[in-house]
């Protein structure tokens, strides 16, 4: 227990120490690189902005991710159960995923002018559903036929087979993908907030730091983003423990 919390905590302290030392030894001015000791000032000065904007970034990421889960799972199920659909959709999906999302941002921004929340959620969603769809489709399509036959030979419906076997068996892959997707969704949200500034979210706060040459603020935003990212990631890890903990190898 001590190990679980103390070790990462010490690692963070070491990281901050090295960062501070680097800035100090090289005598970097703030506009090259701010040091950790500049951050508390930035946080205390703008704490209310951090709370408001942090919340905006957080909820838009989570909504985008939830959409990605719903859509990704549905798409994964379609591709997992039907070979034809898999052959048809896979190239499309890969092509879509290959498009750098930074180029999509202005398109979406123009498509729904002024609908900032919608735009941001949309980008977070578009950037993050791919790994979910792929993992669910692979999980379902690689289900050994015997698993299906065990229930089918008893007269079980497709829905029963899905709930009792296909779904739980796919959960470990799903959570693996969700861990990737949560980070991607977060990147998507920030991309929209920075590239298409509309004064909301931590991305916008970062942008205002840039225009005002407030370098400690920019770094403070980065750290806040990292913190939010860590929180989101570990929420997924906790969910994984609850729903797919059985897949973890027992240390023997």
């Amino acid at each position, binding site marked *: 227990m001590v190990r679980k919390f103390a070790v990462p905590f010490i690692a963070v302290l070491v990281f901050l120490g090295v960062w501070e030392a680097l800035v100090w030894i090289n005598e970097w001015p703030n506009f090259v690189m701010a040091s950790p000791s500049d951050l508390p000032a930035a946080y205390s000065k703008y704490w209310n902005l951090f709370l408001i904007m942090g919340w905006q970034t957080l909820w838009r990421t989570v909504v985008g991710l939830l959409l990605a889960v719903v859509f990704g799972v549905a798409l994964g199920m379609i591709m997992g159960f039907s070979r034809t659909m898999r052959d048809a959709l896979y190239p499309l999906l890969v092509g879509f995923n290959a498009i750098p999302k930074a180029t999509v941002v202005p398109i979406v921004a123009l498509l729904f002018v002024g609908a900032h929340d919608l735009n941001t959620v949309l980008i977070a969603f578009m950037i993050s559903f791919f790994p979910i769809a792929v993992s669910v489709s692979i999980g379902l399509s690689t289900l*050994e036929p*015997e*698993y299906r*036959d*065990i*229930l*089918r*030979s*008893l*007269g*079980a419906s497709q829905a*029963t087979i899905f709930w*009792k*076997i296909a779904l*739980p*068996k796919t959960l470990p892959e799903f959570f693996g993908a969700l861990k990737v997707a949560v980070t991607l969704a977060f990147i998507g949200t920030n991309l929209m907030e920075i590239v298409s500034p509309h004064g909301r979210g931590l991305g916008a706060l970062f942008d205002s730091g840039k225009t005002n040459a407030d370098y400690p603020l920019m770094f403070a935003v980065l750290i806040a983003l990292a913190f939010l990212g860590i929180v989101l990631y570990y929420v997924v890890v906790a969910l994984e423990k609850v729903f*797919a903990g*059985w*897949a973890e190898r*027992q240390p023997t």
Partner: protein
Amino acid sequence: MTTDALIDIKGVTHAYQTAEGPLPVLDNLNVSVNEGGFAAVVGPSGCGKSTLTRLIAGLMKPDTGEVWLHGARVKSPRSTVGMAFQNPVLLEWRSILKNVMLPLEIVPTKLTNTQKEDRARELLSLVGLEGFEDKRPSELSGGMRQRASLCRSLVHKPEVLILDEPFGALDAFTREDLWQTMHALRAEEPFTGVLITHDLRESIFLADQVLVLSGRPATTQYVMDIPTDAPRTLDDLYTPEAAERLNVLRHQIEIAQGRASDEGEAA
């Protein structure tokens, strides 16, 4: 129309539709197994044995011919069938007990939850898995997993038990242990069985009828009846009679594989 055969397969012909055109797998196959009987099916690999089990289970319909179970034509899966495969396909997120109870969640039953659990426990202790009820499948050896899989195939008291090479992946000693377990199960549980196997000793030790299928497309090439007068022991496999039976079967397999002519056929 009634016969005393519980499993009656009449003139079944089946072909798979593949990209290279139809692949004939079964050709006018006839099999009948009496109630309480236990038939072993041997044949060259890829000849259509698993296809036969899927037809009996109602997982597929034959192109032509009929499959009858207990006087009813099989057109779709029915809950009076139990299946076990070479892969024990246990669900890793369930305990052994819950794995065995799975069919009772699917088939219509009047049992209460306690009765379901008792039934599963009873079977598990019959196959020597008492004390392992709460373990996860990954904590058990291959042989133990296969025992649990057998329990699951029998828990809902099926009329017909279909075993598709269930012991194929086990080492020789574990396999012989499981043969004995099969005899113990047959003594306690009433079922009519079909066992697919590629082990001729297994077929004559467990079954009272051995069917040799020809190469693909498979048809019944040879049938050997094995009298079931006394309880069998492993020693029975080393008698001159057993050696003679194995010889005949081996020869039939060679014919099925196209490696020998059927001049000496004794059927």
